[in-house]
């Protein structure tokens, strides 16, 4: 008992089963990516911030486009060779296809990696600073002696788990803690479990919803944690994600940033941006910014006398998104300063085009920062949809390449016994591969060029 039409086409429909299957599957994939593209349009049209244009590395994207198109050609050749029973050429073409997929994914990884290390910081006045965090960014607490933990009696989403959520952020070795009964303990999974159990017993007896545990450190403790790793903090307390509170003193929550760009598009009077405060970039950079801005505006007025300045997104970006290429501001009128204008077109990550990147370092106070993130989905909706689209596309590339690799390596038996069936499989896999390619053909202009 075998299913009919697995290899040969049914006469009246002219299709074998798998071919119908793959076209249907592709139809649903079209709806999947169609939904995502619609989301892109929706987000872009409705964006209430300057939509990042030309932010990505076009060269890398272009190389990837060429690589993928090439692989689409070779997969067809592989199928054709198999149909003509030229098994050697089939293998070579298939191998090239899989190799192209690998090159594509390596490029993609490099692109992602650069973004994860690059940060953007939004200041209270709407200025956006881009740059790198040479030392990372941590909140530092000192002189913490008391921990207060809370364990709910019934199962709940937030329950004290100091081993998982508090101890990792202690600088140096964890000290001994004293419990309320005066017992001295080293905090680990076992001691905490017994501590929590007895506290819960007590809370139950007292008919309370949650048990609280107080621990006193033998020696004052220092904490250092990224803001995303903890729940919140004030000048004197730090709350961890498991609800545990520590009392101590905030010593440092300043952010050291190597600035490579000042985006003043969100500021009403761009030259008064907080970035040019004397604590930060200062007057000299302000002058460089203003001369760059005025240079672009006058150039625009000369080139397009009839157009409205405020409506040109390109001008806004060139004039108000100022790239910093050196540690010190260029002197006025210097040839170097003029060069800036031309280079402001370059994408952010190419800021360091001069070889070693030198950037001014500023130490930002926490009260001036409203939001910061590296270039991940969190940064803005553009990067969110960028990562979702390219991430899902990348997943499709990987799966497609694995399937093709499987045909190449593990389907030898079928190759010898039933090459027609294998040709069908390669055709179906190839159709999927074309689809993956086609999605990229849409993604490239949408994300890199438009």
């Amino acid at each position, binding site marked *: 008992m075998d299913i009919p039409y697995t290899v040969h086409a049914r006469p009246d429909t002219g299709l074998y089963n798998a071919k119908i299957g793959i076209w249907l599957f592709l139809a649903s994939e079209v709806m999947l990516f169609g*939904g995502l593209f619609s989301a892109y349009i929706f987000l872009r049209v409705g*964006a209430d911030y300057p939509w990042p244009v030309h932010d990505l590395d076009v060269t890398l994207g272009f190389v990837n486009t060429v690589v993928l198109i090439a692989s689409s050609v070779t997969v067809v050749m592989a199928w054709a060779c198999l149909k003509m029973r030229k098994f050697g050429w089939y293998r070579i073409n298939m191998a090239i296809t899989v190799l192209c997929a690998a090159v594509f994914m390596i490029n993609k990884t490099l692109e992602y990696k650069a973004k994860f290390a690059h940060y953007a910081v939004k200041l209270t006045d709407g200025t956006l600073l881009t740059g790198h965090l040479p030392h990372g960014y941590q909140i530092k607490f000192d002189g913490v002696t008391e921990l207060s933990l809370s364990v709910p009696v019934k199962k709940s989403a937030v329950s004290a788990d100091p081993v998982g959520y508090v101890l990792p952020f202690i600088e140096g070795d964890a000290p001994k803690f004293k419990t309320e009964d005066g017992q001295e303990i080293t905090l680990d999974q076992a001691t905490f479990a017994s501590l929590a159990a007895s506290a819960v017993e007590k809370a139950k007896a007292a008919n309370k919803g949650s048990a609280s545990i107080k621990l006193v450190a033998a020696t004052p403790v220092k904490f250092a944690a990224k803001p995303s790793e903890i729940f919140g903090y004030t000048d004197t307390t730090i709350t961890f994600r498991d609800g545990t509170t520590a009392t101590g003193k905030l010593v440092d929550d300043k952010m050291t940033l190597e600035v490579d760009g000042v985006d003043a598009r969100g500021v009403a009077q761009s030259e008064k941006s907080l970035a040019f405060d004397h604590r930060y970039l200062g007057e000299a950079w302000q002058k460089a910014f203003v001369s760059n801005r005025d240079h672009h505006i006058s150039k625009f007025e000369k080139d397009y006398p009839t157009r409205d300045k405020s409506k040109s997104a390109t001008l806004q970006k060139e004039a108000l998104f100022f790239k910093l290429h050196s540690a010190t501001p260029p002197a006025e009128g210097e040839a170097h300063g003029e060069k800036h204008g031309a280079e402001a077109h370059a994408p952010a990550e190419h800021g360091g085009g001069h070889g070693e990147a030198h950037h001014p370092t500023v130490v930002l106070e926490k009260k001036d920062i409203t939001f910061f993130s590296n270039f991940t989905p969190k940064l803005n*909706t553009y990067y969110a949809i960028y990562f979702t689209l390219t991430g899902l596309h990348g997943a499709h590339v990987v799966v497609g390449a694995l399937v093709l690799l499987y045909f190449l390596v593990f389907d030898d038996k079928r190759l010898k016994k039933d090459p027609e069936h294998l040709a069908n499989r390669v055709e179906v896999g190839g159709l999927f591969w074309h689809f993956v390619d086609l999605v990229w053909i849409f993604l490239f202009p949408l994300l890199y060029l438009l």
Partner: protein
Amino acid sequence: MSAAATTHDHAHDHAHDDHAHGHHQQNFVWKYIFSTDHKTIGMQYGLTGLIFLLFGFFLMLLMRWSIAYPGVPVPAIETIRALPAIGDLFEAMFGRWLNADGSLNGELYNMLGAMHGTIMVFFGIVPLGFAAFGNFVMPLQIGTIDMAFPRLNMMSYWFFFISCVLMMYSFFVGTGPVQTGWTMYSPLASTANIGVTSVWNHGHTWWLTAMVFNISASLLGSVNFIATIINLRTKGMTWMKMPFFCWAMFVTAFLLLLAFPPLEVAAILQLSDRVFGSSFYLPTGLMEGGKHLDISGGGSPLLYQHLFWFLAHPEVYVLILPAFAILTDIIPCNARRPLWGYKSMVYSVLTLGFLSFLVWAHHMYLTGMGTMMSTYFQITTVLISVPSVILLTCMMISLWGGSIRFNTQMLFASAFLPMFGIGGLTGLPLAFAFIDLALHDTYYVIGHFHYVVAPGTIFALFAGVYHWFPKITGRFMNDKLGKWHFWPSLVGMNLVFAPMFIQGMAGFHRRWYDGGKYFENTSGFTNWSTTLTHKIGAFFGFDIPDNMLSLNIVMSIGAFILALGQVPFIINFWFSIKGGKKTTSDNPWDATTMEWATPTPPPHGNFLFDPVAHRGPYEYSVPGHGTDFYPQWESEPGKPETNPAADKVLAHH
């Protein structure tokens, strides 16, 4: 009778099987658990679906208690808690959220509401209606041996099974299951409980993960259905000789195929909002608890609603089309009349499928869309009622002049027609923006869609169970118990859902966990229905208040009757498998479609002869014909088909 003649040779079939494959008798695990046979997979889907329907119904009973008797402890709560095993399970799932006195609170009510919707729609009705009946019946009706991709079919069930496990697991995690309604609207759904220690402690993450598996299962299923119908129809089974059942499944599969991916997008983006901190659905400046959230903003909550309803409107037709599919087999068979207007039904169902993609924003009139947009969606929404009415009308006319056999499945089927009619007609006013603005999110809407899916689809599903049970097991379900199932169900359903229209028009909101007790201006309202309820209550010595709140009690009594009504069904279902009256024929209902040509129960490979469709699927009471039915597979009247199921398929290699 002719089909009976074809059952003689089971051994013959097995011999073939062994010969072709050389494998031995399959053991239990491979035969019933990891089976690639479409019938077994259909039964797996069916049982899972039935269990989830019952579970979803229990969630609703708890909700109804809270609505009718807010602040009153759940009856017998201490007994339930004291039960061994079940008590612990109840405590972990629901009990830990109850108030100290054992009454429900808003938090638990929201969990129950969200999970009732999710489970009924995605884990009860779709698996039972589409996957179970479709898998079991459709390949038989088109005369093939199995689905086009049997292993994908198995994978589909197991993906679905994983999604069931994940969804049930969400009851046990720290925050409990989701509380944001089955629609999961952002920003609430994106930010609720965002401060939990780990995303895996939050039911929402599990909900989204479960849905990704559920969607993948539907996708595999629908690809399989469509490919099978296109490519595996047997000889003579042209498109217009195909039973309407298969047409309806065909369209349903397309709806699933094309409408589910946008939901997957919606789920992925929401997961990204929760896990990666993106702002797809979060507008700029969003605050919670007086604090700005640590997000970039710039997203749009409306984006979620568009993606969601682009799925969820076609989903409504995914819920109802399998019901039509089942009824178009049951009504002609028991009215002994051909299906009236087969062709117009086929064209209607295709139109319906197409239009269902163009109406989604009628769920969103309240979002303040422009008049142009809402005009467009009002027009498409009114348009889509035309094919729906054609379908319903054709089935009603099919009864005309028939000699109707009122067995249990026909009772359910004939109750479906007016019940679905009420559900459909009450939906018409909602199509208009100006009425919807007033009725949006009230009990009126709840009444409307429950009339469509509860006494509508679920009645059809019950009818289907009674109808195909003899084919699956070789035994009938008990007719008397079936009637004990039907009448309380009919009364209960109407007592539950009819008062909702009255309450809804009075302004009762669907998310009040206390049933409106604290909304005096709305609940203090009196009309004939409340007075009637009050008087009936007084007659029996109960003091039911003479205001809108009294209807809550009516509905809860209805729900209780409905619950009692399911007891005969459960007993009937399990006991008939081994103890029901045996069928004496392979075609006990004297039906005409091809599933009745197979031995009972159908073996692996289905047919003992090469089935050929000689005529249309609804040849009942053909003038001049000896019996009142003329099956599709008979080449001449009464002639048994003996042309053996040759290894026709091997010829392809």
